[in-house]
């Protein structure tokens, strides 16, 4: 099983590599993104780029967005390009194929985020490190990485469902765009819809709970949600059904 999963990961990475190396197929946008996020933003913001709490939400969001695009191409694209049935006719199991695709996309998304964090750290130190090394607080860095992995897994699981229902990659990516807006903007809009008193009370209660405990709750929540969604995706990704899609 492990060998089969890595075989699928290997194939997916060969395709991602091709996309990354080809400027027309997404390599250029990845390069621009890496330049802005990994060099321009850290140089402009300085130490604030490292100390801001926003990184806990920002990098997971970036990785999850990347994963959504990759998983759509990997699942819906496999069907659109008529390679899925041949893959299903191989000896690889349904779960090895799906888990391999999810791991490949998550590795790519998380890898991109971590690489940008590392480049950013170098950039910020080169530009502003005259008074000593500027580093992330270890706990915040760890939480950011864990959030990034879990958000990517959740998005990959959701992506499988969306991609299995979409007939083309474009359709899947459009559906993803809407899902991301709903998932990120929805809670903010809901929060703003609350009365001023309720919001103040809510923030005060969060303050009493403490930052570490909130982070632990979010990690647990993301973990459970990811597990449920991926288990559902595994149940849906079956040869007998896929052959007719």
């Amino acid at each position: 099983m492990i060998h089969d999963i890595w075989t699928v990961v290997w194939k997916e990475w060969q395709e991602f590599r091709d996309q990354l190396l080809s400027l027309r197929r997404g390599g250029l946008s990845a390069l621009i993104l890496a330049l802005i996020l990994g060099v321009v933003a850290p140089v402009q913001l300085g130490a604030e780029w490292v100390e801001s709490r926003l990184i806990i939400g920002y990098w997971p969001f970036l990785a999850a967005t990347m994963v959504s695009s990759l998983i759509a191409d990997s699942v819906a694209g496999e069907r659109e390009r008529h390679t899925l049935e041949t893959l299903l006719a191989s000896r690889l199991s349904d779960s090895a194929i799906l888990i391999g695709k999810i791991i490949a996309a998550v590795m790519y998304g998380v890898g991109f985020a971590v690489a940008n964090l590392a480049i950013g750290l170098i950039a910020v130190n080169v530009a502003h490190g005259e008074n000593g090394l500027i580093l992330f607080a270890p706990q915040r860095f760890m939480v950011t990485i864990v959030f990034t992995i879990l958000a990517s897994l959740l998005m990959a699981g959701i992506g499988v469902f969306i991609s299995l229902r979409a007939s083309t990659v474009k359709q899947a990516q459009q559906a993803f765009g809407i899902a991301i807006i709903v998932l990120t903007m929805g809670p903010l809009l809901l929060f703003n819809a609350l009365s001023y008193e309720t919001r103040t009370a809510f923030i005060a209660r969060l303050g009493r709970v403490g930052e570490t405990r909130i982070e632990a709750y979010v990690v647990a929540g993301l973990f459970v949600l990811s597990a449920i969604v991926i288990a559902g995706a595994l149940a849906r990704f079956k040869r007998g059904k896929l052959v007719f899609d």
Partner: protein
Amino acid sequence: MPNGPELAIRAEHVTRDFGPVRALDALSLEIPKGIVFGFLGPNGAGKTTAIRVLLGLIDPSAGHAEVLGLDTRRDGSAIRTRCGALLEHPGLYERLSAYDNLDFYGRAWRIPRGDRQERIRELLTRFGLWERREDPVGRWSRGMKQKLAVARAVLHRPALVFLDEPTSGLDPVATAGLREDLAALAAQEGVTVFLTTHNLNEAERLCAQVGVIRGGKLLAVGSPEQLRARGDSGRVDILTTGITEELVRHLAGLPDVRTATASGDHLAVSLSNGASVAPIVAWLVQHEVGVEEVRKVRATLEDAFLDLMGAETTNGEAAGGTT
């Protein structure tokens, strides 16, 4: 009846329904190991569904099928491990190189690295694709892609290969080339080939046995010679002297003569099933026509196929049934 291990495929009354549509209708088939079997039928006849059932990708609604002695319902994974397949589409990753396409499936079949490299080189060389191995497959012609897809199907030296219309959409030169490659491959690798096609010429040249399917029903099965014999064309070519248009018209009106046409001294007569040519020759001689040569036209597989298609249509219409 041969037992399991001597048969590559055994299907017993396999039926597959898709809602109200019956794609396979009580298909019973026995295919010995080591032959090229051609599954002939028009589009929508049930050929692809048969492959999907035999590969264990979908279960039959009723009936039972075994592939290499394995149950298609229970042992799908084991069947797919021992079989290769080129399905409706080549199924190649067009962004990857030819080498990487084969490398991926070689890894999937757990072929050790050294053997895998050697096998990929052997197959790409055999199909004349080695020099282009690093090209992304998306840049290749349809014929080259089909060859690569065949190479992928036999990469792991399967005992049985399913090829679903492998020459479909190819130009005549590419078709002939791929056909030669398939024949050589089947002979050299000793693999059983289950080939679906609606190209009768291809089936006649490649297959030791053929089955004809329509509307999910198996209409006939046997060697191409046996099917040709079933489809006796009833056509006779007669080289004459002194035949006139008037006599040809009279001849066409005789009992047991379906059609009669003349081109110069060459007379072509189509007889009813089982009718003898002797009374026709006697009639010609009686009307002072010189008979230089009489030759029965051997039925082609196409004649037999069209006869079967025609007979089935007639039967279906007479019974008011659907296929």
